[in-house]
């Protein structure tokens, strides 16, 4: 049995930084608690370096009795998650400075980040569920971190939903275990085809329920707008980005490794969920006037596009790179938009952004790149992701789903333009005081990254290809 802990260095770094941060936070005076933020950032950077090393030396493997796979999707997912976490830490730094629970904030962030990494590599239903819990529970606390009315409501909704669907997911794990007599994906792959299809279907739907909750996809999306609006902007940026990366890669691995040929028509189920998610998210976003709420619904529709890749997971080899590339591009672009929201704490409604281009041309440019990027305008990263996902869908025999996605893309343009139009209109209120330089810089980095990912997609694509292990 391979028990190589070194294969889990990124996860270890985050967990160790969380523990050290918790201890250090208890002793550090309040004005020095920023050290924990620095520690968190260092852990992310070290994790990125470790992942880079794994990729460069080709040390793909499965560890701990094939309960955890370190392969191409894991590595690509780690890079995305750690980079995104780094950006979240950076955009939190100034708004959290001097907060009386500053170090706890970063500890929670690191813990839920660890959970997300576990989700990505999980090659066993029990590891998957452990990752789910580790990613979820600190996030509930983060949602209500400000202890205000909105935050508390958000945390409560998030928690109730998460607890309910987590239980359902655990029941699903039990059902699949009953069907195949094991929880490892490899054993499931061999055992499930011979099992009762109804049992498998029930188990699969229940497990997917938990993952859909993490991803914020229809029908488990009801918490997304409230949490995004109620939580502080960096936390909102976190909950709409990282858990989605974790849940989608986990879902892809589960479907691709454990359930090919199990007799349940899950590709159709996912295609329907994808169509429902993108359509519902778009329709609900149409007439939102609150910037964060608009972004929340936009993330629901983005999940729809991402689920397209899952629905053709076993039909085409293009699905994996489409999913991983889109996730990376989406994470950067979405964080860029949220970084702008974080940088302008007084601007809440879309009208508050009026005249931004005149006063803060840099932030307006980031917003332009990120919102048009979310539509899928070339040459941003999301365009490349969309191109790959549409290609995968057509290649996987789901042309109708690609057509639905195209219609939704057009529809989404409408509400993104509703936000962009006031930005470039002169006049407006003076609500454009910025949080600070680091936050603005984070916005620049994320916006530039989202553009570069499209232009230099050729360099990134090879990182997303490689076989799944286990």
């Amino acid at each position: 049995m391979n028990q190589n802990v070194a294969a889990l260095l990124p996860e270890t770094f985050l967990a160790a930084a969380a523990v050290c941060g918790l201890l250090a936070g208890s002793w550090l005076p309040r004005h020095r608690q920023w050290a924990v933020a620095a520690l968190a950032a260092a852990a992310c950077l070290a994790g990125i370096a470790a992942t880079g090393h794994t990729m460069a030396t080709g040390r793909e493997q499965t560890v701990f009795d094939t309960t955890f796979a370190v392969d191409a999707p894991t590595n690509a997912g780690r890079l995305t998650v750690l980079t995104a976490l780094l950006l979240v830490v950076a955009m939190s730094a100034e708004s959290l400075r001097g907060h009386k629970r500053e170090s706890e904030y970063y500890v929670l962030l690191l813990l839920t980040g660890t959970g997300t990494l576990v989700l990505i590599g999980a090659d066993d239903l029990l590891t998957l569920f452990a990752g789910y819990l580790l990613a979820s529970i600190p996030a509930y606390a983060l949602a209500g971190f400000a202890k205000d009315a909105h935050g508390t409501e958000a945390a409560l909704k998030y928690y109730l939903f998460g607890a309910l669907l987590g239980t359902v997911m655990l029941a699903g794990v039990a059902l699949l275990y009953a069907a195949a007599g094991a929880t490892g994906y490899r054993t499931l792959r061999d055992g499930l085809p011979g099992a009762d299809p109804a049992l498998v279907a029930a188990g699969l739907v229940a497990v997917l329920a938990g993952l859909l909750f993490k991803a914020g996809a229809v029908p488990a999306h009801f918490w997304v707008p409230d949490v995004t609006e109620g939580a502080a902007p960096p936390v909102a940026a976190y909950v709409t980005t990282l858990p989605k990366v974790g849940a989608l890669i986990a879902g892809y691995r589960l479907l691709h490794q454990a359930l090919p040929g199990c007799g349940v028509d899950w590709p159709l189920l996912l295609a329907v969920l994808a169509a429902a998610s993108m359509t519902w998210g778009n329709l609900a976003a149409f007439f939102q006037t609150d910037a964060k709420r608009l972004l929340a619904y936009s993330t629901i529709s983005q999940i729809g596009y991402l689920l397209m890749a899952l629905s053709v997971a076993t039909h085409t080899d293009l699905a994996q790179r489409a999913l991983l590339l889109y996730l990376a591009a989406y994470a950067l672009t979405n964080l860029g938009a949220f970084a702008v929201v974080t940088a302008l704490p007084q601007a809440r409604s879309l009208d508050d952004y009026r005249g931004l281009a005149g006063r803060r041309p840099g932030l307006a440019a980031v917003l332009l790149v990120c919102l048009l990027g979310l539509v899928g305008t070339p040459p941003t990263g999301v365009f490349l992701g969309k191109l790959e996902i549409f290609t995968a869908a057509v290649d996987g025999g789901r042309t109708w789903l690609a057509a639905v996605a195209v219609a939704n893309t057009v529809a989404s343009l409408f509400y993104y333009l509703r936000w962009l139009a006031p930005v470039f209109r002169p006049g407006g209120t003076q609500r454009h005081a910025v949080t600070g330089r680091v936050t603005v810089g984070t916005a620049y980095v994320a916006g530039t990254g989202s553009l570069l990912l499209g232009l230099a997609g050729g360099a990134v694509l090879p990182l997303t290809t490689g076989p799944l292990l286990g």
Partner: protein
Amino acid sequence: MLTVVTFLPLLACAVLALLPRAVRVPDRVCSWVWIATAAADLALVIAVWVRFDPHGGLQYEQRARWMPGAGVSYHVGVDGLSLPLVAMVCVLFLAAAVHMLRETRRVRALACLFLFLQTVGVGLFVALDLILFFVFFDLSIVGMYVVIAGWGHGERARAAALKFFLYTFVGSLALLLGFIGLYLAADPHTFDLVELTRSNPLAGQGLYAGLVLLAVGAGLAVKTPTVPLHTWLPPAHTEAPAAGSAILAGVLLKMGTYGFVRIAMPLLPGSWRQYAPVFVVVGVVSVVYGALVALAQTDLKRMIAYTSVNHMGYVVLAIGAAGSLAGSDAQARSLAVTGAVVQMVSHGLLTGALFLLTGVLYDRGGTYALDAYSGLAAHTPRFAAATGVAAFASLGIPGFSGFVAEFQIFTGSLASQAAATGIALLGILLSAALFLRALRSLFLGPPRLPAGIPLSGLADLRTREAAATYPLLVLALVIGVLPRFLLDVVEPAGRSVTELVAR
């Protein structure tokens, strides 16, 4: 070389945009940087033209790895189809820059935007990779949206801009689906136009090829625009500033028709032949419907916008006829394609000039309503003469480029599509009627101006306005009288497209 031509304006745009705000650049400097860049770009294109070998196929090719994993490369080049259009684009952008010399509203941003659009316009016509083509296709929509919304005529302009964006964005995504269909059919998967043309991946694929043509055709038809997908055009034109309208009509509409000749015909020859009658019918309907609706307009700019639908209809008719093998020989079909390309160039020059002149009228009178003006010829002889020449040239009078184009289109189409060509001839008659009506109402009769504007305040064409418009008309005249320099370049390319369609 082509990379320089394409990205030179973008470079100037970046320099203007990235100058720190502390550096107050005077508006005049911005305007002159803009003009100088456009002129330099035109000079480069002329240099390309001089060294261009008409019988050499694709030239000045450059190919670089961009995203090998996704089958995308940076691949540019020109042949006889694209070179005249690239030259036309550069001429038109220079004219627009000169026309906007006295603009006072956010000049730096406007100059940046037009320079950006110039890169997009040139880039699209030199692109030899479907994704590169699509990138420019989509960015043109974004750029034009900002021009209309930001510099158009008020609140209605924003609505028109949104309609324009949504409408053409649907088209561009349909196009993308079609491209994906082509990509997946090719083995190995690639978006490269040259390779796809060579391998003809969809030969004999029946329904699949038909669906791909439907997606590509619908996407391009929105942009062209043809009836019934044209409804975004009149409001967009009416609300856009004059130079924006000129670019929209001269450059953006050509992206649709050029796409047919460059992508749909050579890459999908089988389905193109099969569905050629559809394009013929759409073309004829656009011709007649566009002219009829233009005849009913009371707003000058709207009227010109509808004549664009009419003129693009001729192009669609010609390329449809080029796909009808029965009853025609290769020479007739190649004549039709050549006519279509010449029509694109001609329409760009003439309609560009007309829209710039309309801008002058709006500048003086504040409205486009035809019945608000009368007898202008007495006070503004130069303006009247220029508008008259542009209108007559546009309706296809011999001696101007429009005649050369339409004559070739009709001669090339007559053999295989006699009935359709006969009906399309009606369009010429109708456009003659509508232009004459407009000219009479504007320039003849007792002098009259919109309420509140004294006749004494009516100024004739100023130097910069003349400098923007006259060269366009002179070029149209040169093409009309001495068309060989253009036809020598277009004809070999037209022949090779015809051969590709017939294979």
